[in-house]
């Protein structure tokens, strides 16, 4: 399955990420596919190696999907890693994509979860339905 996105689709993805995640206080929001390709990155990733983050996130998701299978689940819809200052939230977008949100300690996890759910619903049709 190859993915081709027009400029218009990319612009739509960018505005959704900016509107719902960056304005809610997230430092960074990335959309990647499950084979590790970086599709869009927003926010201030100047010091962040976003290409490596995309590859490692896809692998992380794949590895936890195997853990899910061991306990009788297909996969996990979201993952959350908590750091001292920075947190990272991963959520599944359709079957083929992952939304990664980085946010600091003064942003609530609940807000991020709520907004990523909304972003996911908006992104699926842009990415061509249930890919």
């Amino acid at each position, binding site marked *: *399955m*190859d993915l*081709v*996105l027009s400029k218009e689709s990319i612009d739509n993805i960018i505005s959704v990420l900016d509107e719902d995640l960056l304005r809610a206080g997230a430092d960074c929001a990335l959309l990647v596919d499950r084979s*590790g*390709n970086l599709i869009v990155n927003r926010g201030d990733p100047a010091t962040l190696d976003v290409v490596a983050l995309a590859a490692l996130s896809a692998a992380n998701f794949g590895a936890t999907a195997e853990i899910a299978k061991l306990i009788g689940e297909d996969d996990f819809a979201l993952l959350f890693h908590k750091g001292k200052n920075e947190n990272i939230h991963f959520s599944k977008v359709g079957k083929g994509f992952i939304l990664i949100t980085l946010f600091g300690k003064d942003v609530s996890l609940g807000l991020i979860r709520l907004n990523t759910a909304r972003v996911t619903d908006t992104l699926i049709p842009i990415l061509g339905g249930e890919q």
Partner: protein
Amino acid sequence: MSFIDLSKNEVQCKIVYYGPGRGGKTTNLLYLHQALTDSVRGKMVTIDTKGDRTLFFDFLPLALGQIQGLSIKIQLYTVPGQVMYNATRKLVLKGVDGIVFVADSLKVQKEKNVESLENLRQNLAEDNIDIKEIPLVLQYNKRDLGGSNIPILSVEELQEDLNKELQVSSFSGSALKGDGVFETLREISKGTVKYVSRKLLSR
């Protein structure tokens, strides 16, 4: 799965280095990482594990310049070669656009090479990919041991074992010294970009 971003005119493809354990897949990537300039290569990621085996994967992104106005970004991955890590191999193979099979020239690895190639064929088939359709290049690694007292397979034997049916391009190499590393990369990149663009045109 390749990804084409028309807002940046950019193509991203995934190439996986496959082969038996301790055959030199990671060494290929390390050599490329050392030999290429910063403008071409990104940061190499190796998941830290004890010992010299790859337990998950290594990752090296490259920017290969432009073809017909499209900039080509290639992501190189290696898989763990040991038989028991098949689940990880399947995970890394997900969305692959091209494969380099790094065969070990050591005589004692003769069967391991054949087993690993068969494993690749099966794992691809599970993802509905025919090994004869996807771009594939063979690299016969460790040729520099030729003059030593360690018994190695001849290129003819390797061809007979691995390439008789596939009939794909093959290169003699020494990943440690860098021989054949760029030739292999050049061939697989060319094949992969062609394969991805053909798929796109037929959409």
